[in-house]
């Protein structure tokens, strides 16, 4: 505040451009998994994405002196909370970005609201972030479990694969993904014939896959993530599950996972993503620059960090403030048209509404390179993709 006033005074008294005189310091903290299971889909790539956003926004010439710092939260809520507190209280961080793993994201969301800063979450999937545990200063950018369930669950059921069997990771995330998808399946006229909960993490899925095979389901829904999904798909191919007519639906899968499997094993899988590097000219251009800096193609989480940072910086520039409430209000009041996510806006509860896309993994013959993995099946308009705000249980929305 003080700086803005000073800047205004400078302009008033000398008639010089404020930006040349006094630049505003903004510190962004990328808090994510840098060494564990989500290190590839978030990790250093998200830091690269945030730095690209700062450069592309041309922050310096707009009077913003932006610094990007990062830390590893190791997917542990207590560690994430400590870092977030230290960043806000001592290191002058104005916004925290990324934060994969729902439990850590929820913890950081609370601390952010108390400190009146901004959390732009890209990596976490829980709908709680904009539901029962919503905060006015939380912006949930990229995806959530409801959108994934809607995209993949809906599309597969409508394709005619009605009978579902779920292979579910036995912890909160798996349960909620399973529950959301079951709802969608039943709404679309499908039927759930069974489910099995596997320990997390698991290496061998053959036993569970055999149970799924015996269930007579048309489709096996994988309500797990990362290495578990990769292992399950690899072994499903081995046990001839896909060849015998049952199909697999990966409910949370990132391009890094598909890349790990290779087109040979992953072909035919249907999955939902908010961003794919080869979607159009703009995503290709941005992804090429990202790859040059980082060494591999971006995930939707990286893309979300980039877009979120752009919109945040626009808010700071427009309002001249880093105050959480002020910035959040501007971000919600102004829609964006983004090279990576297209047109979209931030809903009152903090949910970012943009299109989601349904993709199918290419066969090895169709794929022309190691990252040429998806073909576009359909686009789910943002309004349909995410849960409606009503009934989601977000307190401050009801109050307002």
């Amino acid at each position: 505040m003080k700086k803005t006033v000073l800047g205004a005074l400078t302009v008033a008294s000398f008639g010089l451009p404020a930006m040349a005189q006094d630049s505003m310091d903004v510190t962004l903290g990328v808090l994510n998994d840098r060494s564990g299971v989500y290190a590839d889909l978030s990790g250093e790539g998200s830091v690269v994405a945030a730095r690209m956003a700062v450069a592309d926004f041309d922050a310096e010439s707009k009077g913003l002196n932006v610094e990007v710092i990062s830390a590893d939260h190791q997917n542990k809520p207590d560690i994430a909370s400590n870092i977030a507190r230290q960043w806000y209280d001592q290191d002058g961080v104005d916004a925290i970005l990324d934060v994969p793993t729902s439990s850590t994201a929820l913890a950081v969301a609370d601390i952010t609201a108390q400190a009146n800063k901004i959390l732009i979450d890209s990596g976490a999937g829980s709908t709680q972030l904009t539901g029962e545990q919503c905060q006015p200063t939380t912006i949930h950018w990229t995806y959530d479990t409801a959108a994934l369930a809607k995209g993949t669950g809906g599309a597969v059921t409508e394709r005619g694969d009605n009978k579902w069997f779920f292979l579910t990771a036995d912890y909160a995330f798996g349960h909620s993904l399973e529950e959301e998808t079951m709802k969608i399946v039943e709404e679309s006229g499908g039927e759930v014939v069974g489910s099995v909960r596997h320990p997390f993490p698991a290496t061998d899925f053959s036993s569970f896959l055999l149970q799924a095979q015996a269930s007579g389901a048309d489709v096996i829904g994988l309500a797990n993530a990362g290495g578990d999904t990769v292992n399950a798909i690899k072994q499903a191919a081995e046990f001839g599950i896909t060849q015998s007519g049952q199909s697999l639906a990966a409910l949370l899968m990132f391009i890094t996972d598909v890349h790990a499997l290779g087109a040979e094993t992953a072909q035919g899988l249907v999955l939902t993503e908010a961003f794919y590097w080869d979607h159009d000219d703009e995503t290709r251009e941005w992804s090429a620059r990202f790859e040059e800096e980082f060494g591999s193609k971006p995930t939707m989480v990286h893309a979300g960090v980039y877009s979120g940072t752009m919109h945040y910086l626009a808010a700071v520039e427009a309002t001249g403030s880093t105050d959480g409430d002020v910035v959040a209000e501007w971000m919600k009041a102004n829609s964006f048209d983004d090279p990576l996510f297209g047109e979209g806006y931030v809903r009152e509860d903090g949910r970012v509404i943009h299109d989601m896309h349904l993709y199918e993994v290419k066969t090895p013959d169709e794929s022309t390179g190691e990252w040429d993995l998806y073909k576009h099946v359909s686009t789910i308009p943002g309004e349909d993709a995410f849960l409606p705000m009503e009934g989601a249980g977000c307190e401050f929305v009801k109050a307002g």
Partner: protein
Amino acid sequence: MFELLGIPPQVLMGQLLLGLINGSFYAVLSLGLAVIFGLLNIINFSHGAQYMLGAFVAWMLLEYLGINYWWALLIVPIVVGATGVVLEKLALRRLYHLDHLYGLLLTFGVALIIQGLFRNYYGISGLPYNIPSQLSGGQNLGFMFLPNYRGWVVVASVIVCFGTWFVIEKTRLGAYLRAATENPTLVGAFGINVPLMIMLTYGFGVALAGFAGVLAAPIYSVNPNMGADLIIVVFAVVVIGGMGSIMGAIVTGFGLGVIEGLTKVFYPAGSAVVIFVIMAIVLMIKPEGLFGRNA
């Protein structure tokens, strides 16, 4: 006649077979640990990392040199075993006169370093490695579809396990080895190069981990943490079998694979802990392990 808790016999047979397959990995890995502990008194905590190394070296051979699975099966244990030999010569050798704990800490540290390096270079998501074309497809056994590759895993593991047991328990070389651990000075006095033999034994134990890594590469995710996820279970297997007992490691490896497989049908949520529950019970009743020698 097998109908148990409403599980039809076909399903039961299938799960028994699957348990045997998973048991193969436990057996080969715990065998390596048992050889190293039984003959060297080193608790080799880097075993998981060396297993991971096996899978990665197989991937590297294919990716960078175009060397296929079958050659990898031969080359990888030699390469991974060689890294074990280097580790023994440079570091482990200096710890033999100290408490077990020092060897454990050293090998644990080495495991963290190896895993960290691979995570840094190859990321966490894993790398693709396909089943060799000769073993793709499978057999319909009536009660289940048995992928050819899994059948091969069981056969290969059984051969390697019993080959190792035979060499150590029934041959002259094995006799020297066992004698050298009992009384290195005396065996050395007979003109046998004991330090060399110990070094090669460690190398062999590590090579077994590398071999298991190659076997695992086509069916499990090849990622830097693949060994860390498995090693704790394998240690439990070794403890149940009796630390250092070769036959104990083999039999409990296969046996626990089967028990774990059945748990996945009857009570899936318990499949992650069943081996540890058994370990706790065995330790209470027979602390030296089922096949332990130092009763």
